[in-house]
């Protein structure tokens, strides 16, 4: 008999702790940290959306909703995504979840059989690989490179052996690189997926945050709608991370499968957040525009300062990240030294998988004053 009766499962043990945990503990000991390490907006949720949440609470609207989310919300989501030429039936092809994270996790579990290979475009958001493992699948890293501006290409897919994969998951606009993919670039990926009968999980959570370029969804390309699940949500666009609300768009039978898991694990997404989201879609377009304007200015500022310091950085056109080369070959070492000497928090790129090594993720979801301080300190550190 084991002396510890509650043993973690093999599944859990197969997934290491997050790479940024160590930095988090270091920073917690320090005062006056200026953080460019944050993966969420610095803005508060638009006021009208917060008011709507409060109003719903005061009216006592605190029961479960339909499993797939409130009808009024799904109808508005259908209307909202039409701006990306995406057409989904609110009754059968949309499910509202507790953040896009829940939708992605449920989609892995709904679509991955034990031993299935899931190709992951990396560097990427940190949840895909653990999600695939929890679902019993085999993750396969598909590296994207700085020389391609971190875009996913047919060549990279082939080189990684992704033709054997059952599923491909990616995130564009990308966390951590800030890369976006044009329709033409997506066409090459779509052709590869059709040829090798690969389904696509397209995480488009940053779709509203592109600069000087339009977001394109792979699901709009010929023959792709039936093999794609699109994920989006309210966290980034409407600065609603803590309210936990996202959604998936897919053909009816896929939504039905995702819902099979969702109805037993989550039952329904947070009701208060759904009320906030309805208001966000109805009346917060100008707030989104204002946040977008601010992000774009900060992006320009950070790229200009990095260039002045002689730090190599491709011009990221999406999300709220830039992904410069680390001034030292070992990005982790650099990030740690920068934190200790100047109390500036940045995340080493290898925390986001292959292709990230030798780079740093700088988030500009931080006010201009802090951004300037961080850049001044970085400059001083390099001097």
């Amino acid at each position, binding site marked *: 008999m084991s002396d510890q009766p509650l043993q973690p499962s093999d599944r859990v043990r197969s997934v290491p702790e*997050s790479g940024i945990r160590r930095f988090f503990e270091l920073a917690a000991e320090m005062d006056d940290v200026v953080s460019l390490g944050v993966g969420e907006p610095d803005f508060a949720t638009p006021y009208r959306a917060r008011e709507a949440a409060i109003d719903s609470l005061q009216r006592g609207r605190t029961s479960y909703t339909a499993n797939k989310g409130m009808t009024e919300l799904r109808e508005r989501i259908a209307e909202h995504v039409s701006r990306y030429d995406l057409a989904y039936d609110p009754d059968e092809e949309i499910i509202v979840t507790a953040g896009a994270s829940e939708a992605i996790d449920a989609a892995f579990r709904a679509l991955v059989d034990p031993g299935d290979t899931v190709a992951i475009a990396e560097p990427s958001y940190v949840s895909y690989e653990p999600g695939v493992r929890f679902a019993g699948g085999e993750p396969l890293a598909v590296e994207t490179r700085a020389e391609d501006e971190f875009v996913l290409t047919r060549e990279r897919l082939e080189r990684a052996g992704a033709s054997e994969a059952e599923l491909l998951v990616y995130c564009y606009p990308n966390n951590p690189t800030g890369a976006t993919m044009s329709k033409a670039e997506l066409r090459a990926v779509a052709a590869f997926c059709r040829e090798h009968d690969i389904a696509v999980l397209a995480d488009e959570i940053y779709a509203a945050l592109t600069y000087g370029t339009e977001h394109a969804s792979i699901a709009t390309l010929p023959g792709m709608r039936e093999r794609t699940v699109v994920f989006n949500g309210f966290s980034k666009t409407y600065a609603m991370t803590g309210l936990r609300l996202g959604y998936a768009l897919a053909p009816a039978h896929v939504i039905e499968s995702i819902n099979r898991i969702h109805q037993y694990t989550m039952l329904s997404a947070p009701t208060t957040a759904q009320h906030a989201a309805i208001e966000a879609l109805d009346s917060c377009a100008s707030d989104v525009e204002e946040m977008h304007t601010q992000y774009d200015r900060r992006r320009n500022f950070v790229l200009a300062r990095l260039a002045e310091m002689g730090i190599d950085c491709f011009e990221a056109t999406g999300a709220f990240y830039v992904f410069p080369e680390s001034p030292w070959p070992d990005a982790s070492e650099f990030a740690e030294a920068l934190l200790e000497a100047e109390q500036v928090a940045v995340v080493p790129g290898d925390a986001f998988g292959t292709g990230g090594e030798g780079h740093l993720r700088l988030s500009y979801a931080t006010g*201009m004053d802090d951004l300037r301080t961080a850049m001044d300190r970085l400059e001083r550190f390099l001097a």
Partner: protein
Amino acid sequence: MDARDTVLDLLRENARRSTADLARMTGLDEQTVEETISTLEAEGVVAGYTAVVDPAALDEEPIRAHVECNVALDRETSYDDIAERLAGFPEVASLRLMSGDYDFALEVTADSMGEVSRFVSEKVAPLPEITQTVTHYVMETYKRASHRFDTDEGDERLAYSP
């Protein structure tokens, strides 16, 4: 937004940024930023720069009053004429012509309530066109020029998140 609107927008947000930072934020070159600001100033679009001060944070809090004025016009006197006379007083911090129940809204500042009262009764009310004044003293200022006062808006986010 063109360069002019962008620069104006940034100045309204924070007029103390360096032209170098404004250039970095907009992608314009520094000279264009400087020229744009000069033009905005020369044309009177930008009439001045000022600090947004939280009155409650001062050692001696100035007294502010919102004064409503009704006026009677005649053939020789227009709103502009009356405004011209009122605006000249240094105690008048802002002056607006309003629609609705009264004509002019004045924001009057002075060091004491007595000073405000004397100013209204001795300088404003006696003007021949002014038929009525109503003075409201400001009790607390929570927000001014888009700035919130006395709020704790610290960043509660985790220093690192994926």
